[in-house]
């Protein structure tokens, strides 16, 4: 009998996480508070048991995350006792950059991509683990598990290293860094199934509840705080919604759903006809959007 699917994915991810610690001097986990990050955090706890994960967790805060995400982040750091670093691009704050004033593209570039680059340089991290999956988006489908970034943090798809078997090339040159994706081979469904099986805590926004939303450009945007401008022709309504993916609240659409428990969510997943990233504005704000962002250093 072969190892069941989820156990195999789990073992692969643990192997990759350990490989990073065995071969890099200063790794970090990019912790974005979403479901994939929660799974990654859980796997990191497993990988080094009985010790704690020997690296910090870095949250690049754009200051536009859902309030429930930030509460969840701080609670997890307290309960699990991991080393949480939070970085905000102060230049962006000083310039008043925001999704409503500058649009999704500039906001994401300044507050996420630039901020991430700043943080990596500030702490001198040589490897950054992240929870990206190949099934999320088609340029991510092309990414290696160990993905080299230039000293300028750029991703060059043509410079990707061949990656055979489980024999990873973890060497980096001066100033270069490695992005590492232990969940590369997981699907959205695997993630939910694993969260259910392992009883992993996640942000409550993933479960259906009545929330104040505005319909805008075909998406349901939640009114998370007073900074959200309401146009004259718009109305805030309470709807039963949940999120399949979490980012900056003005850029992340809610979906109407009654799935209030993990089994409900999994049942919903079996019939859903749209991809999770449909509700992420930054994937579609230009042609080849994700690839362009990745080339500049977004992950």
């Amino acid at each position, binding site marked *: *009998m*072969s*190892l*069941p*699917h989820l*156990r195999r994915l789990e*073992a*692969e991810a*643990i*192997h990759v996480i*350990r490989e990073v610690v*065995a071969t890099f001097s200063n790794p970090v986990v990019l912790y974005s508070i979403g479901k994939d990050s929660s799974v990654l955090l859980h796997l990191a*706890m*497993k*990988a*080094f*048991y*009985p*010790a704690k994960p020997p690296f910090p967790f870095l949250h690049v805060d754009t200051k536009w995350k859902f309030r429930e995400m930030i509460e969840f982040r701080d609670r997890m750091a307290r309960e699990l006792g991991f080393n949480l670093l939070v970085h905000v691009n102060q230049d962006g704050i000083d310039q008043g950059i925001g999704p409503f004033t500058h649009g999704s593209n500039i906001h994401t570039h300044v507050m996420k991509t630039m901020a991430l680059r700043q943080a990596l340089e500030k702490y001198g991290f040589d490897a950054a683990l992240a929870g990206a999956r*190949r*099934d999320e988006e*088609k*340029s*991510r*489908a*092309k990414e*290696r598990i160990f993905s080299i970034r230039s000293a300028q943090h750029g991703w060059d*798809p*043509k410079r*990707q*290293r*061949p*990656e*055979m*078997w*489980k*024999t990873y*090339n973890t*060497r*980096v*040159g001066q100033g270069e860094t490695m992005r590492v994706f232990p969940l590369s*081979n997981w*699907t*959205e*469904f695997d993630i939910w*199934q694993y969260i259910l099986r392992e009883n992993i805590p996640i942000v409550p926004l993933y479960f259906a509840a009545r929330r104040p939303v505005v319909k805008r450009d075909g998406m349901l945007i939640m009114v998370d705080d007073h900074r959200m401008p309401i146009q004259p022709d718009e109305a805030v309504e309470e709807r039963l919604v949940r999120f399949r993916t979490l980012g900056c609240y003005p850029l992340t659409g809610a979906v109407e759903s009654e799935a209030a428990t993990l*089994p409900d969510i999994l*049942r*919903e*997943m*079996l*019939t*859903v006809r*749209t*991809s999770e990233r*449909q509700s992420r504005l930054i994937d*579609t704000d230009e*042609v*080849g959007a994700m*690839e362009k962002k990745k080339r500049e250093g977004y992950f």
Partner: protein
Amino acid sequence: MSYLQTMPPHDIEAHLAEHDNKSILRFITCGSVDDGKSTLIGRLLYDAKLIFEDQLANLGRVGSPGAANGKEIDLALLLDGLEAEREQGITIDVAYRYFATSKRKFIVADTPGHEEYTRNMVTGASTADLAIILIDSRQGILQQTRRHSYIASLLGIRHVVLAVNKIDLVDFRQQVFDEIVEDYLVFAKELGFASIRPIPISARYGDNVISASANTPWYKGPALLDYLETVELDPTDREKPFRFPVQMVMRPNADFRGYAGQVASGRISVGDPVVVAKSGQRSSVKAIVTYDGNLKTAGEGEAVTLMLSDEVDASRGNMLVAPGSRPFVADQFQAHVIWFDANAMMPGRSYILRTETDSVSATVTTLKHQVNINSFIREAAKSLQMNEVGVCNISTQTPIAFDAYNDNRSTGNFIFVDRVTNATVGAGMIDFPLRRADNVHWHALEVNKGARSAMKNQRPAVLWFTGLSGSGKSTIANTLDRILHARGKHTYLLDGDNVRHGLNRDLGFTEEDRVENIRRVAEVAKLMADAGLIVLVSFISPFRDERRMARELMDEREFIEIFVDTPLDECARRDPKGLYEKALAGKIANFTGVSSPYEAPENPELHLRTVGHEPIDLALEIEEFLDRLMEDK
């Protein structure tokens, strides 16, 4: 995740358990450019209703020269996710897709057809169980069909689907199909596949993709998806001998010492005996530790931490194995190597060889032959160019533990990493250890280097002079040699020109021959140092890799690299042998500095600038350096 399902199940937990235990098939699609690989995967997913609506809608948003207008969807665009791919209408890198049907789970790697991107095809093939090899009905078997079939077999793929595509463009004629199948079977006989399943297909229109097509009544076999769902897979590595490459040693506190890793094959239980592969030390398993509690037994694929009953010495790169069936431990072996890099593989050059957890310095000692992809004929070769496959003897600086690749894909593979660029430049599949690695041991001589050099009242050293032709290497080396000789030191001077008259007279000036030239001289210098001599080596030695190789042959602090730095203009002006005049006139090929590169040392022990300095002063500077070195031993 796309999921073939129309009604949600009532008992979700039972459904998930069943889902988790489905077998998984990893396959690749390969074949020549434009044979329709991406289209076939797109069709498979589309017809099986495994594509999300927004992803389908997006196909309309992305403009591409290949995009079909109107009703027909360009399915290839589902997979070609990079801008350059959409611009050129080709697949550059592997795309992985995940899907499941009610019978099985699938991971498909859509791999590129272009020869230029063979490395990415190898990436997909290294973990696949089955290959779909596409052939364009109008073209028949092409060079890439052969290359990909060969590589698939080399990487251990045992099952092949021969998808004879675009059958609609030959009017669904059985004769065309039969001829291609026959050609393929003849050609593939040598490749040793366990099964080959030919299917006539139109990826564009969906014939025989998920259901039997009315257009090919003469075809009685299964449709592609049926076949993928039911093809019998080989038994897993769980039944093989126990192998546990040590990934890291966990020592969170004084009471806990465990070996973390992923079981590469076989299984292990508490109480089982194990052996440390490289040292032969024996112990037994005291505990199998995981976050979810200790296990009684663990098998292939599981990532665990093993605690042993005894204090043994096993660090990262070593392997814990079954005592009754041990892997090879050797520093010389034969392997099949696929080369990926634009810089050719040179025998004698030093690379980093990486197995799953081990990393050692290695050189190819002999390139026995390369394999012609079209004829499978072995051809003599001096180097291995990009995308070529060769059979090599490899020597590592320290022994590694391994199995033959045919016996174990996890413990029989390695990659070559370039020491300067850190690029993955080659992939290797180990065939067997070389007998002499087992039988030839260093003869421990009673009169050793220490004794010889003590008698001479000196410390042996290799003074390696490197620089352009005419830079003044030999003049300075000669001057220094005279000084040392006068002081009663025992020396010998190896000069490039002189050695080429004897030991190396069979070598020319190609890159391969230059590498070999330096290798031999370095070995001679090593023997002379072993005899207790101070050896002066005056060679252009233009490549960093070879100088590093020479350095690694010598003992710590024994190798002194001396960069004789003279600008090219000045060398050409001096031109003591009239060589620059000839080279600049195009009469000498591969002349360093003119038609062949010189890689200056980055951290030489001594950097001598000759312009404005007399050779005698520079020689005295080296003497001073040597004296200081001898003092602080």
